């Protein structure tokens, strides 16, 4: 490693240390400056990628699909962040992008499976992907299947509320609904899952 590389490496590390101390809003301001764009984006990515990935994975179940959707989300963030007006928290906006991309993905998937299979042949047990897990208890398998059968919006709201522990104001902003609507979605999800489990 020559002196120039060492200097660049050191500069990169210092920049990374510096950006890690900034909050999301400050990072977005930096993102809007061409020379700091990449460092700011990398920091935002590091900070939020896991939450976004897990939320997508809860929706799509398969890692490969979650990876694809997460990539789409972050590429969209790179392309659109310049226009972000900071009227909401960055994380809310980010979850909203993830919500839209996930719904688009599920819609495409539905169309594809409708093309390949008749509605009656859709195997929710395999869709849940849990039947091969020897450690999974019956209730775990049933719960996973019930989650898979929820309408997308209710499922997304349930995950945000139960696992991400977000408040309803934020959930409403993410899913483009009212606070009352978000609450209703959560409770409908509980009711529907209960009904599915009772049926089984």
């Amino acid at each position, binding site marked *: 490693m020559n002196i120039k590389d060492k200097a660049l490496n050191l500069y990169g590390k210092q920049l990374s240390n510096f950006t890690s101390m900034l909050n999301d809003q400050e990072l977005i301001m930096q993102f809007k400056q061409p020379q700091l764009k990449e460092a700011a984006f*990398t920091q935002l990515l590091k900070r939020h990628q896991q939450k976004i990935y897990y939320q997508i994975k809860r929706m799509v179940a398969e890692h490969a699909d979650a990876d694809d959707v997460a990539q789409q989300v972050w590429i969209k963030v790179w392309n659109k962040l310049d226009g972000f007006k900071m009227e909401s928290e960055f994380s809310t906006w980010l979850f909203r992008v993830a919500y839209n991309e996930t719904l688009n993905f599920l819609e495409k998937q539905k169309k594809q499976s409708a093309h390949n299979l008749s509605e009656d042949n859709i195997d929710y047990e395999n869709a849940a992907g849990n039947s091969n897990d020897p450690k999974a208890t019956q209730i775990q398998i049933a719960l996973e299947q019930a989650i898979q059968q929820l309408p997308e919006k209710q499922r997304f709201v349930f995950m945000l509320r*139960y696992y991400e*522990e977000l408040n309803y104001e934020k959930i409403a902003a993410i899913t483009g609904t009212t606070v009352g609507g978000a609450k209703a979605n959560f409770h409908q999800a*509980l009711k529907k899952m209960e009904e599915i489990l009772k049926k089984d």
Partner: protein
Amino acid sequence: MQQEHNDNTLLDEKALANSLFSEAALSAFEAKQSQVPNDYFEHFENQIMLEVKKRGSSAFILNISKFGKIAIAASLLTIATTAYFFIPSYNKADDIALNINLQDIPTAEIDEYVNSNEIVAEIDWQEEINNESSSLEKLNSHLFKDSNNIQ
């Protein structure tokens, strides 16, 4: 106060979900979602940056192609305009006329055509005569003025 209320509501709702579906099953679901390949997130970061750079360069090409589109549209417009003025127009009527035999045309139609064109020809000739006579009159008047000047 509001925050406290929200927290209580959240706890109540989570307790409700746990009682309906078993907390263990809900935790197991989450544990399953958290399983990712080793170093996935480290690789993901690099992957995204590569993808962003790749798409960034393709976006540049797209920008060029936008100008390209305008240039292509302008070229096509120029070609169309030039063609309109310089390429001799192809008259389909001529082509049809070639296939028509003179004997197939009724005599009445031929008479009508000749008569109507004769009238046009007469009018044309009359105009030409009038023009010629007026120009001769002008010439005469010039000559007359010139002869007066000589005298």
